């Protein structure tokens, strides 16, 4: 039986500290006094790159610059310098800046950021962020080359965040299809992991997910959240005959309309009305 990988007291305390740190960093961002035009971009870059500046000022400079990227082409003139600044920030002592920079770079498929993240996954002593966060950043690019390491981490890690993010990366990896199907069916897995497996399988093999959904709904020993996930998948994405043509399923949905939690009753009624059961 796999250990419960939900949040333990240790991980909760770690999360609380991290959140407090982040909150204090950006709660009140001060206004910067910047000139007009592209000189403002350059001055913001200078503030951002200056380790002597306070964190709130650096965060505000970063916020202003990233907001300015939405006004191409004026920003194009400083884009190279901005990317250089972000790459430098990836190694900044301030975790909030590291994360922001990695996020912006990863979403732009920056090779430097991807290589750094992969190195951190292979050699944890060089990791700049947690494995779960690293996988989340790498998931933006199917060509980042994270599939095999995602599969390994999914098998070996006890951290549910890591496993959840690994599943997201594996959703673009046909070689992981069987592993995902097995995880989805495994009652020993936490509900959140099984739910993410459902989403991942949906991406790779929608038919397989629908097959699982029927079994899950008919299985009265499945947790309610899992049944709800299966019902939602069927209600949204299944063809009508799969539901209306299955007598056992119709009967089960009929039972759910009168028994179970309010959420399940509403869902069952919705399916009944939609498919005219």
């Amino acid at each position, binding site marked *: 039986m796999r250990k419960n990988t939900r949040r333990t007291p240790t991980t909760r305390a770690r999360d609380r500290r991290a*959140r407090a740190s*982040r*909150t204090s960093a*950006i709660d009140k961002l001060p*206004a910067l006094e*910047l*000139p*007009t*035009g592209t000189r*403002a971009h350059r001055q913001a870059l200078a503030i951002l790159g200056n380790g002597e500046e306070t964190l709130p000022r650096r965060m*505000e400079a970063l*916020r*202003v610059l*990233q*907001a*300015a990227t*939405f*006004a*191409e*082409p*004026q*920003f194009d003139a400083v884009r190279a310098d901005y990317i250089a600044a972000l790459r430098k920030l990836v190694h900044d002592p301030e975790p*909030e800046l590291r*994360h*922001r920079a990695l*996020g*912006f770079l990863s*979403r*732009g*498929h920056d090779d430097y950021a991807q290589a750094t993240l992969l190195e951190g996954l292979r050699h944890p002593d060089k990791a700049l*962020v947690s494995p*779960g*966060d690293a996988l*989340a*950043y790498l*998931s*933006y*690019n199917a060509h980042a080359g994270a599939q095999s390491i995602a599969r390994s981490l999914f098998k070996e890690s006890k951290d549910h965040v890591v496993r*959840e993010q690994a599943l*997201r990366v594996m*959703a*673009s990896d046909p070689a992981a299809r069987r592993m995902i199907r097995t995880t989805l069916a495994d009652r020993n897995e936490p509900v959140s992991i099984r*739910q*993410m497996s*459902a*989403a991942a399988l*949906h*991406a790779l093999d*929608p038919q397989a997910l629908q097959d699982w959904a029927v079994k899950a709904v008919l299985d009265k020993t499945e947790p*309610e*959240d899992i049944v*709800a*996930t299966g*019902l*939602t998948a069927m*209600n*949204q*994405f299944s063809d009508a005959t799969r539901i209306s043509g299955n007598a056992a399923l119709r009967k089960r949905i009929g039972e759910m309309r009168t028994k179970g939690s309010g*959420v399940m009753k*509403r869902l069952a009624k919705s399916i009944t009305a939609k498919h005219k059961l």
Partner: protein
Amino acid sequence: MRVEIEINNSPLAVARYVTWAWTPCRIRVTDPAGITGNQATIRLDQTALGGGGSIRFANAAAGTGAATHSLSVPRDGTSAAFFIRGITASTADPGVQITGRQTGAAAPVGTVSLMVRIRKDATTLSNGERDRLIATLAQFNNQGLGRFADFAGTHVSAGSVEAHGRPGFLPWHRAFVLDLERELQAIDPSVAMPYWRFDRPAPSLFTPQFLGRGTLNGPGTTTVTLSATNPLRFWKAGPAPGITRDPNFNVAGAAPGPLSQATALTLGNPGALFRNFRRIESPIFPAQRDYHGSAHVSFSGPIDSIPTAAQDPLFFFLHCNVDRLWAVWQKQQGRFDVTVAAAFESVTPPNRVGHNLGDTMWPWNGVTIPPRPNFALGGTLALSPCVSAPGPKPKVSDCFDYQGVVQLSNNMGFSYDDVPL
């Protein structure tokens, strides 16, 4: 005697949706039994149905209208025209029933049901409206295999020059949001795109029942928490499933970055010029605050970068609000007529192609020859059974008179709850 009443001059049920704009209707006799003379006088009344809402009637597309209306309808089946417009919005479909009665008679001779379908503040949606919207969004996304992929694949770096940094920014995004809204309405005609009023608190938007809850001040790696019955948990718009979004502010309050609406509306001054107003797009120094770009970066996740922003459904709520602000400004300053110079920013030499009034807009024009991008996903702009504007290949100029103020046929088929006609 029987009459047939058509909304938007169409017999189709999918055309029975109105906004604040004057909507052309017609009525004709289908069974003249009991009519003496060449015509019958019909009185039109309205009744609120389950979805609620109310309308006004008029002989012409002008004035305030009245709660009821009487008109003469020829016996021979020729149509008689009248107009209606929404006054209060419906929350479900159908919302309002129009009943026709022959003057002096109690029995109805014809009815038609319709919905006053309005773009609303997302925080004011009823649970039913919310659930229908997200179910429709999820179906349109269809785990990444649906046509939503065209929208996510259009708002990327390679196409961004068509939509950003130049005067076409607002018209382009108006067409983009409208295109999505119409695609959703093809699945469920009762939905309208709501807006995220980001300069005000919107806590109910970022809940597991709606667009999901991220981690406050999280690093932008959190897959938002969604309830087990929320179909958005199967959302996929990039390589990986799920919606990743962490707020950089406490969502119990307003996003701190963007300007307030009142301040943003003054950006066009002096002179209420479009060329100044469109600076809501990106930061203006030394204030370094803007309306649009700051909203994008108030969250960490795909929404904060141009290449990935449209992967998050929140993008459309955000841009619906940006468009609403433009609509508010247009209403305040009377900027619906593109022939008025202040309504746009036409320059000599002309702006880059795609940013002049007479230019068709990519991707709907299907042009893939340089300097346009070499791809154009999704085909033409979705058509509406209710209105004909802005057409399948809209020009920049087609996206200004969205309620048909200057010319009724310019009506694009949407209105905002707080922007009257």
